[in-house]
């Protein structure tokens, strides 16, 4: 077997093309640097690969999910929970669900566009509650980059002057939908704060390259038509490709970061999934953005004389402190909305309102907060429509007639129409405490189809997260009651089922596995996402996070990747790299 070495030497070799990799590629290429992106999945162009505005009948499975598209047949993300030939393992008695997008742009092609800045407290949690660790940076360090990401990418929302949910540069949000007005009512009675959501969707034009939202509610299909939502492909990679400074190598599964005698990174070796040949590409810097766990796997698999415990891992923290957002949810129906008038309420692809964390943990039995996301209303029918009607049509009178549950025929058709559009649901997304023992490491016995050793996960929720989920569920129950809704699922929570707390990994906000810190003995990266042990190696995805707040992490990944990329350029100018 022969290893093919590319002759071209790049300023940066970037592994991964999602939020972190896309932003690094964009920032560096726009400044004139030569960049190579290695992407483990297929090429994908939202302008060519279209699922937007398709009708359910155009899919033979009517939008149902498959292994290739776990979020549905029109969802824009390739792969997810189960990637062919790429297994992972778990320590006995532990759970971890690992989402892996395999395509250019990664999961940004389908994500929820919930774009929340961290607040000042989110960087200093240990100082507040004594748990976990403080970041080596604070809000003021990141604020200028959040501001620039807001303006570059575009986001709607409102300035509310909240201490830990900072203001930004927001486009106008859309008005709440009908069910959202009922949620507001219920929340007000329960004392839950509701504000307009903050999504990276353009409600107004911000430049000539992108259009504006036309309210089809399909951001998860990626906005092929108007480029009005943020995806790494539409907003960063394809615009940056126009500079001519980027080469993309798709279907390139990174095997190892290569290092020299001095322990510096020289490039990346990878297998091309198309021809199954081994390749090497070299660069002045190596930037990992393969997703928290993949980047850590790559570091752990990059052992050398100078880095015997894996690259950037003299501290032994790589793979540790793995944590996901907590999640619990509940759904039901709003009887007020039975038999409702029909009109188009697709709106943007996601909620128009949300609840930032509104309570003081000093008065609660768990640390850290959560935000609440909402949904409901008259959405496009898809596989699963009307499922379990027998649980509804015997419970509520239909147009004044009490029926027997189940049934068939004309009467049943009336029921489907009657209940359509009356659903409502909510989900909490909270902050977990990163723990030293919650980790992924290299499984000593298992390799993937490319011969690359795979990750073995060992993650357990602590009492903190379980109690947080309990609070979520109790809050949801109360809000549902206060808005007049009847709970139809998610109401069965108790100690035995961890109060409905989703298994870790399920919320797809994994972070912390190569965390930044001031002390090289207890962290892998410094405050510029630069490896303590290898100065020309950077990690710009969720792995760098010391903690992840009760905020979805994408906006912070983007801001930190932009910041790290500018640091790289300044260090290059100073001849330090």
């Amino acid at each position, binding site marked *: 077997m022969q290893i093919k070495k590319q002759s071209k030497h790049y300023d940066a070799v970037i592994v991964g093309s999602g939020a972190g990799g896309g932003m690094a590629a964009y920032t560096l290429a726009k400044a004139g640097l030569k960049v190579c992106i290695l992407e483990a999945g*297929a090429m994908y162009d939202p302008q060519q690969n*279209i*699922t937007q*505005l*398709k*009708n359910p*009948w*155009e*899919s*033979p*499975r*009517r*939008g*149902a999910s498959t292994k*290739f598209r776990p979020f549905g047949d029109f969802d824009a993300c*390739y792969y997810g929970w189960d990637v062919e030939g790429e297994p992972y393992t778990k320590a006995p008695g532990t759970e971890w669900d690992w989402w892996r997008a395999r395509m250019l742009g990664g999961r940004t092609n389908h994500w929820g566009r919930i774009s929340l800045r961290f607040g000042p407290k989110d960087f200093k949690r240990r100082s507040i509650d004594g748990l976990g660790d403080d970041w080596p940076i604070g809000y003021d360090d990141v604020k200028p980059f959040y501001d620039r990401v807001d303006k570059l990418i575009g986001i*709607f929302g*409102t300035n509310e002057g909240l201490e830990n949910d900072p203001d930004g540069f927001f*486009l*106008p949000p*859309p*008005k*709440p*939908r*009908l069910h959202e*007005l009922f949620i507001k009512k219920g929340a007000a009675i329960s004392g839950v704060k509701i504000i*307009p959501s903050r999504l990276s969707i353009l409600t*107004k034009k911000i430049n000539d390259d992108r259009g504006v939202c*036309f*309210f*089809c*509610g399909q951001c998860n299909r990626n906005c092929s038509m108007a480029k009005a939502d943020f995806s790494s492909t539409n907003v960063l990679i394809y615009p940056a490709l126009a500079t001519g400074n980027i080469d993309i190598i798709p279907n390139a599964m990174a095997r190892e970061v290569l290092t020299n005698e001095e322990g510096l990174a020289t490039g990346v070796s990878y297998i091309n999934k198309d021809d199954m040949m081994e390749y090497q590409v070299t660069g002045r810097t190596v930037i990992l953005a393969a997703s928290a766990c993949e980047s850590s796997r790559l570091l752990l698999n990059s052992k050398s004389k100078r880095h015997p415990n894996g690259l950037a891992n003299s501290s032994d923290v790589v793979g540790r402190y793995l944590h996901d957002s907590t999640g619990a949810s509940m759904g039901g129906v709003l009887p007020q909305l039975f038999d*409702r*008038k*029909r*009109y*188009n*309420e*697709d709106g943007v692809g996601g909620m128009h309102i949300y609840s930032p964390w509104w309570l003081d943990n000093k008065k609660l039995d768990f640390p850290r907060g959560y935000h609440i996301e909402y949904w409901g209303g*008259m*959405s*496009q*029918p898809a*596989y699963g*429509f*009307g*499922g*379990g*009607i*027998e649980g509804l049509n015997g419970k509520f009178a239909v147009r004044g007639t009490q029926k*027997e549950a*189940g*049934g*068939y*025929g004309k009467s*049943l*058709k009336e029921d*489907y*129409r009657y209940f*359509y559009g009356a659903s409502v649901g909510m989900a909490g997304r909270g902050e977990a405490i990163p723990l030293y023992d919650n980790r992924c490491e290299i499984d000593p016995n298992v390799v993937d189809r490319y011969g690359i050793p795979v990750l073995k996960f060992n993650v357990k929720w602590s009492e903190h997260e379980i109690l947080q989920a309990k609070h979520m569920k109790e809050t949801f129950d109360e809000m549902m009651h206060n808005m007049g809704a009847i709970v139809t699922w998610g109401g069965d929570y108790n100690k035995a089922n961890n109060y409905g707390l989703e298994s870790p990994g399920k919320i797809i906000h994994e972070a912390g596995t190569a965390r930044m810190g001031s002390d090289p003995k207890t962290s892998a990266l410094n405050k510029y996402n630069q490896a303590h042990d290898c100065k020309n190696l950077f990690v710009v995805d969720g792995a760098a996070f010391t903690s992840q707040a009760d905020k979805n992490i994408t906006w912070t990944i983007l801001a930190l990747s932009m910041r790290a990329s500018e640091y790289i350029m300044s260090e290059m100018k100073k001849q330090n790299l």
Partner: protein
Amino acid sequence: MNRRETLKLLGVGAISGTALVGSSKAQVPVQKEQEDPVFNYDRAKEELAREKQLIAQGNFFTKEEMATITILADIIIPKDEVSGSASDAKVPDFIDFIVRDMPQHQVPMRGGLRWVDMQCLKRFGKPFRECTEKQQIELVDLIAFPNKAPKELSQGVSFFNRLRNLVASGFYTSEIGVEDLGYKGNTPNQWNGVPDEVLKQYNLSYTKKELKECIKFD
């Protein structure tokens, strides 16, 4: 199309029903010409390979099973003053595809159809598809209402719940079904908030803050 016409089209009317329930012939899947599926929306490479394989498999259900599914589907969703029937919306074809796509449906569906036939055989001496409409409804009435169904028919109730769900999935995601529901979206528009008359109906209004801050279109 009514159920009898559907049967005629399928070529499995009463005259072909000499076998009691199953036959060796009945186990042979309907063979379709193999052709590459056409998609007007994005398919990744490995995904397309699987789609081709699903199509190439040919029908999962036998002619007789399809006939039974068609009758049951049209009992669940018949034509009414608003819209057509399940078979008008090609729901049986959808069901055949979805059981290939989701193998977890295969045993419960095949077994459930056989359960129905065996019940009919015991009660009426014929498989379901050959029973009179009255007999068919008599059987359906026994399993379509979970809370009052006889306990000993619980397997039939489970089957009917599953079938009802699949029929609803297939029908309300068809062009006919989406129109029936009155779903108005999936088209470029400008969201200007809940229509005034609807706000009025529910005695709701937007706050001054919302009216000031939110995007509006004239």
